[in-house]
């Protein structure tokens, strides 16, 4: 049987990889992919906690479903923003979107 720790360590590593992607990627679509990885790490944790610690309660599952909605909303709006920004500035590099700097 797999102990809970394996899942938690895996999720922590996946989260770290996603975090690296978010911080280091230049392409904003790549940043979004990093965020997806992080959200998935969270989901693995939530399901693992549900299964190991509170198997008779539904909170964990509902939480995962809500994270799913958040991930979907984030992807939809984030990518729409990137496409819109690309159409105006012809770039998807996050560092080059300097609209707020003036």
């Amino acid at each position, binding site marked *: 049987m797999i102990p809970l720790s394996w899942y938690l360590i895996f999720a922590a590593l996946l989260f770290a990889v996603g975090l690296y992607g978010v911080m280091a990627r230049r392409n904003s679509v790549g940043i979004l992919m990093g965020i997806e990885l992080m959200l998935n790490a969270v989901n693995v944790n939530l399901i693992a906690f549900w299964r190991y610690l509170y198997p008779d309660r539904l909170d964990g599952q509902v939480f995962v*479903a809500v994270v799913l*909605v958040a991930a*979907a909303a984030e992807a939809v709006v984030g990518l*729409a923003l990137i*496409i819109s920004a690309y*159409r105006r500035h012809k770039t998807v590099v996050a560092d080059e979107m300097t609209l707020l700097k003036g």
Partner: protein
Amino acid sequence: MLDHWLYIGLFFFVAMLLPGAAIFIASILAPKKPNPIKSSPYECGIETVGESRIQFKAQYYIYALVFLIFEVEAVFLFPWAAAYNQLTLFMVVEGLIFVLILVGGLLYAWKKGALEWR
């Protein structure tokens, strides 16, 4: 339950293996005589112009977006459907309100012209 998934995993493996093996056998049987003209990208018989991986309009993205929203909605509705026989009328209505809110989104997209093919 893990037995079920063992079966599905093996099934997935075989389902990928069968066409893969067929293609592998064919690639052994088939002749191989490549030449530059033959392996140039097809463009109605004339020479290839420009880069092949061209760019697309945003309309495709909008369809995918509406699809994604409805897919996530369906994910919530499937457990609701599975529990349908045990639900009271009030709970059924609550699930339908969930749908109704999203119908509003569909109507918005419609009115905004986002569903037109341009």
